[in-house]
C-alpha cells in the first residue's frame, strides 16, 4: 500500500435538519480493487456515497483523491474528477431512449457541437453488446422493466471511463444472469485500475468480487480490512451488531386444499397460457429470468392490468379481478417490485404509507385518528425493524431498505389471505431479511398462502415449497422437493 | 327578396353592459328586424390584436360594411385602412379612431363625458372638497379620454383636492373593495367619487352604504347610464352621464346603409328623432356626436321605462 489511495474519505459527517445520518463515515479505496461497503439498512452507506459524489454537502470530514484533497460541490465536479455513481434509487429520464440516457451529459457530437444521434445509437448498441445486454438503444426508458432500467444505469456508469465507480446496490433489482454480466464488467474495470465501491446486501456477491471491506453501523465507521480476512458470520455480526441465527427460518407446511387455481392466463406478449395452483399454507415461488413475465403475471392476478385470456378460481369460485380493489376484496395483497414507482407515496409519512391500503379499516365511520393510525403502524416498525426518527417522517427521507419494509408493512396491514411478493427483499439487509423470511413462514398458515417471485436463487430455494419456472412468458416447469436445485432452476429458465 | 345587406359589428368586447346594450340595439334596428340587413357582432375581447384579426375575417367574408368600436384609437388605424382598401366602408361608433379613412363616426366624445362626470360631482359638493377618482384600465382609449376630461375640469377647480386616483378596471367588485379600503384610510374625508364608468360608481356606492355612511354626504357620479345606475339615480344615490348606446349603434347603422346606398327612406332609426339637433345630412357627415345626457330625477323614469322594453 505504498501508492496513495485512489480515494480516501475520513470522518465524514452529515445530518438532515438536525438529525445525524452520518457521524463518522470513512473509507479507503485502492486502485484496481472492489471495496465492499457494508452496513444495515439506514447505516448511512448511501449518505456517505452521496457525499462522495457531491450530491449532498457534507457537514464535516475530508475527501482525498490520490492524496490531494478534493471538494465536490456538485456531481458535475465529481464526474470531472473521474468519479461516477450508480445510485441506489433508479434515476431514469423516462421519456428518453436508452442511448440518450446512457450518454446524457456527454452526447457524441458532430460538427458545430450538434448531437450525433446516429453515432450515439451505434455507440450505445456497441456498449450494450459488449456488456452482453439485449436492449434496444431506441427503447424509451419509461417502457422498460425496472431491471432493465437498472442495467441501463450500470451501462451508463461503466461507459464513463471513471477512475472511481460507486455502485450503490446495483444488483438489487436484477437477476443472477445480469449480475454475472455486471461482474464480468467489473473484472474488466479492475484490470484497468478502476476502483469500485460496492454496496450490496447479498453476501455471496461480496465474497465473490470484493477485495476489501468497510463496515458501518449507525452512521459510524466500525472497521475495515481485506475480504479474505473476515468470515461470513463475523461480517454479519459486525454489520448488525448482534448474532444472527440461520438465514432461512422456514417452518410453514403446505396444506391440502387448493386456494387458487389459474387456468390458461394470457396477456398480450407478456405471458401466455399460464396455469398453476396454490395450496393453503404454501409458499409458491415463481422463478424466471429478467423479462420472463413474472411481474406481469402477478399484475394480472392482482387486477392491475387484467389478463385478456384464461380464468382463475379462488376457493373454487370464479375470480376475475378488474382492478386492484377487486383483488384486495378477495384477500390479495401485492408488494410490487418497484417501490418508488408503484409502492410508496414518497412525500407522505411512514404511517400514511402503512395505512394507505387499509384506510377503511383504520378509519372509524370515515374518520381517521392519529392514535389509530399510530396503533396500526407501530407494531410493524418493531417487527420489521423500520429505522426512522418517527412515524411521521416522509418515506423519501428513509434509506432504501427501510422504504422496502414500509411497503411490506402496508400490505401486511390489510391482513391478506394471499400475499404476492415481487422481489420482497430488494435492498433489505440480512437482519431484516431474516425477519421477513420468518414472517413469511408464519404467515403461510391455515388458509393463507404466499406467491413470491425473486431473482435471488438462494431466496427462492430457501423459502419456496414449490417453484413455477417461467421462460419467455410461459411456464417451463414446476419444481418441488428434491428437484429444487439451482441447476434445475437455471436449466428450466434459460 | 334580394340578399340581405351584411354588416359586421366589431365591438371592443361584450363583457360590460354598455356594449351589450349597444349590440342589442343593433339587433333592434328596423332594417335588421325587417330582414333587409343582417348583422354579426364580434367580441373584440378588449384586445386590439383580436379586433385586427376579426377585421381579417370580415374582409375575407366580404361584409358590405363594418361598424367599428375600437378598443384603442391608434391601433384601429391599420384595420380601417385594410377594410377600406378592400372596398368595405368602416363606420366608427362609440369610441373614436384616429383614422382619416373612417367613412364616418357616430358616437360620443369621451373627453366630454369626463368633463361632465367631474362637473357633476364638483357641483354637488359645491366646488370645494376632497374627491377620489376611479379609473378604467390604464391606457384604454376610454380611460385616457375620460381622464383627460376629468383633469381639465379639476384644473379649473383649485378648491378640489384629489385624495386618491386608481384603476378598478371597469369592475364593480374591484371598485367595491377599493372604496372600502379608502373609506378606512380617509375615514370621513371623502366628499366625492368620480368614477369613469357606472359599474365602478355602483361598487363605490355599495362600499359607502356598507360602511354606514350616508350618500347624502358623498357625491358619486359615473358614466354610461347602465340600468343599475339609472335605478341608483332614481334613489338619489348618484349621478350618471347617459351615453346613448342605442342611438350610437342604430345611428351608425343608418350611416353605413346610407354610404352603401342600399336602402331608401333613411334614416330608419329613432336616433334622429330623439336628438332633433343632430342633423342627418343624408348620412354624409364625417362625425355625428350623439349628445351625452345627464340623468336626473326628471328624466330617469322615462329612461328606465325605455330600458324595460
Amino acid at each position: 500500500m505504498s501508492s496513495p489511495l485512489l480515494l480516501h474519505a475520513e470522518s465524514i459527517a452529515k445530518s438532515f435538519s438536525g438529525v445525524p445520518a452520518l457521524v463518522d463515515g470513512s473509507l479507503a479505496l485502492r486502485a484496481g480493487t472492489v471495496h465492499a461497503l457494508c452496513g444495515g439498512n439506514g447505516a448511512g452507506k448511501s449518505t456517505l456515497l452521496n457525499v462522495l459524489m457531491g450530491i449532498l454537502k457534507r457537514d464535516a470530514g475530508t475527501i482525498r483523491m490520490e492524496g490531494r484533497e478534493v471538494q465536490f460541490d456538485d456531481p458535475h465536479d465529481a464526474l470531472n474528477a473521474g468519479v461516477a455513481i450508480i445510485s441506489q434509487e433508479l434515476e431514469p429520464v423516462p421519456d428518453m431512449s436508452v442511448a440518450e440516457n446512457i450518454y446524457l451529459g456527454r452526447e457524441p457530437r458532430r460538427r458545430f457541437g450538434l448531437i450525433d444521434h446516429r453515432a450515439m445509437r451505434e455507440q450505445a448498441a456497441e456498449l450494450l453488446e459488449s456488456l452482453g445486454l439485449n436492449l434496444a438503444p431506441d427503447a424509451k426508458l419509461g417502457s422498460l422493466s425496472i431491471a432493465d432500467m437498472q442495467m441501463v444505469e450500470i451501462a451508463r456508469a461503466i461507459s464513463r471511463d471513471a477512475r472511481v465507480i460507486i455502485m450503490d446496490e446495483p444488483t438489487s433489482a436484477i437477476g443472477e444472469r445480469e449480475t454475472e454480466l455486471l461482474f464480468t464488467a467489473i473484472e474488466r474495470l479492475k484490470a484497468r485500475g478502476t476502483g469500485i465501491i460496492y454496496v450490496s446486501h447479498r453476501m455471496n456477491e461480496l465474497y465473490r468480487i470484493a477485495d476489501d471491506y468497510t463496515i458501518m453501523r449507525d452512521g459510524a465507521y466500525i472497521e475495515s480490512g481485506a475480504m479474505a480476512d473476515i468470515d461470513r458470520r463475523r461480517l454479519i455480526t459486525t454489520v448488525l451488531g448482534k448474532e444472527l441465527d440461520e438465514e432461512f427460518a422456514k417452518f410453514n407446511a403446505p396444506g391440502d386444499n387448493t386456494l387458487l387455481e389459474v387456468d390458461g392466463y394470457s396477456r398480450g406478449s407478456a405471458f401466455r397460457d399460464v396455469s398453476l395452483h396454490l395450496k393453503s399454507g404454501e409458499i409458491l415461488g415463481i422463478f424466471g429470468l429478467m423479462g420472463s413475465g413474472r411481474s406481469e403475471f402477478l399484475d394480472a392476478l392482482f387486477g392491475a392490468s387484467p389478463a385478456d385470456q384464461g380464468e382463475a378460481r379462488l376457493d373454487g369460485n370464479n375470480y376475475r379481478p378488474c382492478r386492484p380493489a377487486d383483488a384486495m376484496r378477495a384477500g390479495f395483497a401485492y408488494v410490487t417490485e418497484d417501490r418508488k414507482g408503484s409502492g410508496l407515496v414518497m412525500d407522505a409519512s411512514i404511517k400514511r404509507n402503512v395505512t394507505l391500503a387499509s384506510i377503511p379499516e383504520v378509519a372509524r365511520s370515515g374518520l381517521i385518528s392519529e392514535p389509530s393510525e399510530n396503533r396500526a403502524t407501530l407494531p410493524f416498525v418493531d417487527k420489521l425493524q423500520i429505522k426512522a426518527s418517527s412515524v411521521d417522517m416522509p418515506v423519501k427521507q428513509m434509506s432504501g431498505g427501510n422504504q422496502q419494509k414500509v411497503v411490506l408493512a402496508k400490505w401486511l396491514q390489510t391482513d391478506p389471505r394471499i400475499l404476492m411478493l415481487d422481489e420482497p427483499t430488494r435492498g433489505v439487509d440480512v437482519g431484516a431479511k431474516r425477519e421477513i423470511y420468518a414472517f413469511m413462514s408464519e404467515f403461510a398458515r391455515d388458509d393463507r398462502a404466499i406467491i413470491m417471485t425473486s431473482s435471488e436463487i438462494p431466496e427462492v430455494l430457501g423459502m419456496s415449497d414449490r417453484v413455477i419456472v417461467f421462460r419467455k412468458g410461459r411456464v417451463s416447469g414446476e419444481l418441488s422437493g428434491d428437484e429444487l436445485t439451482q441447476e434445475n432452476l437455471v436449466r428450466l429458465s434459460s | 327578396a334580394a340578399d340581405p345587406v351584411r354588416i359586421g359589428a366589431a365591438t371592443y368586447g361584450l363583457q360590460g353592459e354598455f356594449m351589450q346594450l349597444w349590440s342589442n340595439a343593433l339587433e333592434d334596428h328596423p332594417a335588421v328586424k325587417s330582414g333587409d340587413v343582417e348583422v354579426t357582432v364580434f367580441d373584440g375581447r378588449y384586445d386590439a390584436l383580436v379586433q385586427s384579426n376579426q377585421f381579417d375575417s370580415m374582409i375575407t367574408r366580404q361584409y358590405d360594411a363594418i361598424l367599428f368600436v375600437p378598443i384603442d384609437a391608434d391601433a384601429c388605424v391599420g384595420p380601417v385602412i385594410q377594410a377600406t382598401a378592400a372596398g368595405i366602408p368602416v363606420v366608427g361608433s362609440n369610441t373614436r379612431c384616429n383614422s382619416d379613412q373612417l367613412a364616418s363616426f357616430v358616437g360620443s366624445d369621451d373627453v366630454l363625458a369626463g368633463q361632465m362626470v367631474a362637473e357633476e360631482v364638483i357641483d354637488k359638493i359645491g366646488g370645494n372638497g376632497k374627491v377620489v377618482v376611479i379609473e378604467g384600465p390604464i391606457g384604454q382609449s376610454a380611460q385616457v379620454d375620460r381622464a383627460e376630461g376629468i383633469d381639465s375640469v379639476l384644473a379649473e377647480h383649485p378648491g378640489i383636492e384629489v385624495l386618491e386616483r386608481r384603476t378598478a378596471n371597469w369592475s364593480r367588485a374591484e371598485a367595491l373593495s377599493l372604496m372600502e379600503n379608502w373609506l378606512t384610510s380617509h375615514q370621513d374625508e371623502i366628499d366625492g367619487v368620480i368614477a369613469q364608468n357606472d359599474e365602478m360608481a355602483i361598487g363605490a356606492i355599495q362600499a359607502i352604504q356598507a360602511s354606514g355612511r350616508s350618500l347624502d354626504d358623498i357625491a358619486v357620479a359615473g358614466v354610461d347610464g347602465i340600468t343599475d345606475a339609472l335605478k341608483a339615480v332614481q334613489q338619489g344615490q348618484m349621478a350618471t352621464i347617459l351615453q346613448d348606446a342605442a342611438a350610437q349603434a342604430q345611428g351608425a347603422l343608418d350611416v353605413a346603409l346610407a354610404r352603401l346606398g342600399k336602402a331608401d327612406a333613411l334614416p330608419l332609426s329613432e336616433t334622429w328623432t330623439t336628438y332633433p339637433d343632430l342633423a342627418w345630412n343624408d348620412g354624409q357627415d364625417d362625425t355625428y356626436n350623439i349628445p351625452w345626457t345627464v340623468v336626473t330625477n326628471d328624466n330617469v323614469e322615462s329612461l328606465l321605462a325605455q330600458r324595460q322594453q
Partner: protein
Amino acid sequence: MPQPTSLISSDPAPKDNAHRSLATFMSDYGIVVAFIVLCAVLSVVSPYFLGVNNLLNVLRQVSINGVLAIGMTFVILTRGIDLSVGSVMAFAAMVAASFAGTSAGYPLILPILLGLGAGLALGCVNGVMVARFAIPPFVMTLGMLSMARGLTYIYSDGMPISSLSSSFLWLGQGMVAGIPVPVLLFAMVFALAWFTLRYTAFGRYVYAVGGNPAASRLSGIDVRRITFAVYAISGILCGLAGLMIAARTSAALPQAGVAYELDAIAAVVIGGTSLAGGKGRIVGTLFGVLIIGVINNGLDLLGVSSFYQQLVKGAIIVVAVMLDRSRLSNA
C-alpha cells in the same frame, strides 16, 4: 427476540432540539412568518391597517377568493388544476340571481340550491372528463372556462341581473354577531376542508392520489372517483362563491370573475402546495389567501398609484414566497 434497532421510541436528536423545532416550524409555517412580517410592516406604515374594521374588511374581501382557493387546493393536491373557477362562479351567480329577484318571491333556499347546483354540475363535467376520459386538467378546465362563460352569456342574454331580494343580499352583506356573513361562510368552508383533509379517509385519498397515482391505484383506491370528486368539490365551492359575489355586489354580472383563477391558484401555491400534487396544506392556502388580500388592502390604504401598484404587488408576492422558501437549500 432481536433487539429493536428502531429509533422511533427514543428521542431522535437530543443535541439541538430547539434548533430543529424552529427549522421544522419554519419549513411548515414559513408562510405564516411571511404573513406576520407583512402585517407588521403594514401596521407600521399605515395607522389604519390594524383597525378592527379594516381587518374585517380584509377578511370580507378575501372570502370569495378564499372559497375558490379551497376548492383549488383539493384539485391541485391531486396534480390537477381548475382554470374554470371564475367562469363557473359567474354562471352559478347568474343562475342563483335569476331566482333571487325581489319580485320573484321564491324562498331563499331556492336560489341557494340552484346556485350550488349549477356550480356542482359544471364541476362534475370537469370531473368526468378528467377522471374518465383522461383529458389533461389544464385543457379541460380551460375549455370549461370558455364554455361556462358562454353559458353565462346565453343564460343572461348578456345582461346583469340586479334587484335581488334583501334576504339573498344578506349572504354577501349581512353580519352575524359583528362578523360579516361571507367571512363566516369562508370560515365554515375552511374548517370543513381542514377537517376533511386531516381526518377523513377521503382526505387521505386526495393526498395519495396526488402523491403517487399508480401506488394509490394499486392500493385499491378508486383514483378516478377521487379525481372526479375534487372537481365536483371545486365546482360546488364555485357555486358558493357565486352566491357570495352576487350578494356582495348586489347583482350577478356576466363578466364577473374574469381571471379569478389566477388569484385562486396563486393563493394555493403561495401557501406552499405543490403544483406537482400530493404535497401541501389547507392552512397554507388560508395564509396564501390572506397574503394576497393584505397586499391589496395595504396598497389601497397607502394610496399607491395604479402605476406602481402592480409593480409593488408582484414584488411583494415574490419576496413573501422567498422568505418562506429560502431555507429549503439543498436539492
